[in-house]
């Protein structure tokens, strides 16, 4: 005889899983439609390794929904609570430490960044820019990820300082643009593409919600700051600074 509670719990779990999967599927549906449209009507060739791609697609949907579910259960509430707690504690030193650590640790584990840096290492290896051994490839990929993570950490730190001091955002961003352009002149050509991309790659699934929570939380506690006006803008720094740092990394590696 099965307890009614067990049935209830099972039903609840089933419903949550179903809802998450449905959400992930609706996110992916437009992409699937575009690809199917092109494959069937324009290319008119069978997709090679169709079964494998389908299986991989299922893994992506399943993995993404599990991942987001896990974030919402554990990481987001505690991250938000800590951002609030630290802002209220009022110690500038610890707040800045937390800002840096948050930016760094969320970026190191960013799935999109892991995938792209691995791909970048392979391309660099095929182009004979770095020795094509397993070890040098993975150290190149790790170097890329670490320089992006450090720069995102610094970016969040600067962004928090901006909220505290009330600096206008556009001067900082325009100044950053100028530095990007100057770095472009001296950086080796092979790194420029990946460096520019690094800005967009860093800010996705994990980083955006946590960082936004930190910004809005801070701005709502400090007097005279509007959470809607000053709370935004952290992500803008986090997508600007990595460009500069990755070009710096390229200067060191390819020199």
């Amino acid at each position, binding site marked *: 005889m099965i307890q009614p509670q067990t049935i209830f719990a099972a039903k609840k779990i089933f419903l949550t899983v179903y809802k998450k999967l449905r959400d992930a599927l609706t996110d992916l549906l437009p992409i699937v439609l575009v690809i199917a449209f092109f494959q069937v009507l324009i290319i008119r060739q069978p997709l090679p390794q169709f079964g494998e791609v389908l299986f991989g697609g299922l893994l992506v949907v399943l993995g993404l929904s599990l991942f987001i579910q896990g974030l919402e259960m554990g990481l987001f509430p*505690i991250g938000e609570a800590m951002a609030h707690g630290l802002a209220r504690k009022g110690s500038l030193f610890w707040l800045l430490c937390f800002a840096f650590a948050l930016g760094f640790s969320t970026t190191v*584990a960013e799935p999109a960044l892991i995938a792209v840096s691995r791909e970048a290492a392979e391309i660099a290896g095929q182009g004979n820019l770095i020795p094509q051994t397993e070890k040098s490839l993975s150290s190149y990929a790790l170097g890329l990820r670490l320089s992006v993570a450090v720069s995102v950490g610094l970016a969040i730190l600067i962004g928090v300082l901006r909220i505290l001091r009330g600096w206008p955002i556009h001067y900082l961003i325009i100044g950053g643009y100028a530095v990007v352009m100057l770095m472009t002149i001296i950086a080796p050509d092979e790194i420029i593409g990946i460096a520019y991309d690094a800005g967009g790659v*860093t800010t996705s699934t994990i980083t955006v919600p946590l960082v936004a929570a930190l910004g809005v939380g801070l701005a709502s506690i400090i007097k005279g700051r509007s959470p809607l006006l000053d709370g935004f803008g952290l992500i803008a720094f986090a997508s600007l600074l990595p460009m500069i740092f990755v070009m710096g990394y390229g200067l060191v590696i390819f020199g």
Partner: protein
Amino acid sequence: MSFFKLFSGIFLETLRDVLPILLLIVSFQLFVLRQPIPHLRRLIVGGIYVVVGLALFLSGLEKALFPLGKIMATQLSDPTFIYGSKVAVAQPDWMAYGWIYLFAFMIGFATTIAEPSLIAVAFKANEVSGGVINQWGLRLTVALGVAVGITLGAFRIVSGTPLYLYILVGYLVVIVQTIFAPKNIIPLAYDSGGVTTSTVTVPLVAALGLGLSSTVPGRNPALDGFGLIAFASLFPIITVLGYAQYMHWSAGRIKKNLKEENNAI
């Protein structure tokens, strides 16, 4: 069997990647805030979900999204598909790659319009502006920005022109717009650039660029393959600033008209 090997390797790497976040949270909670960790069980279960989900996602990425982007780019830029014969072309004609541009445009639009973080940002923007900025209007604007950006990026790879020129011009446009745009939209517009490029978009778009640069004659993946994501995160800033400016202007005009009507009465 090979899949399990792949998966277990990725799983171990993922574990190593997630460790810094856990260490950060635990040490801050215990040593700086000096409080016990709330909802410890939820945190642990959530952590397990994160690691397993991430490992599944990355293995799926390796099997589906990367190959898919590359296959599509290769098929669409295949000389037999474009020129009808297997002639070796030394200098590609950028006009012949129409389907590539259409594909880039549609994939940019499709990945952005359903993006969850964009939906959240659109909701907040509606709040900031006191309802002046329409949620759907903003989402369409951003998606259009990403679509145009990726299309232009694909054109850049086909034509082989230097990336920094496009980005430089884009920056100049952003700076000029910043001067004229309503001040309270600026941080939001800057953020919308980073928000749009999600975990699914990035690998697919990156693979598109790499595939394209390896099949178009005369292009080198190491030099030309990257840069599409940079376009996708720059152009939404421009379109959002433009949209805000337009809404501001038309709201101002309506007010002015109302005033004039009142005066006339």
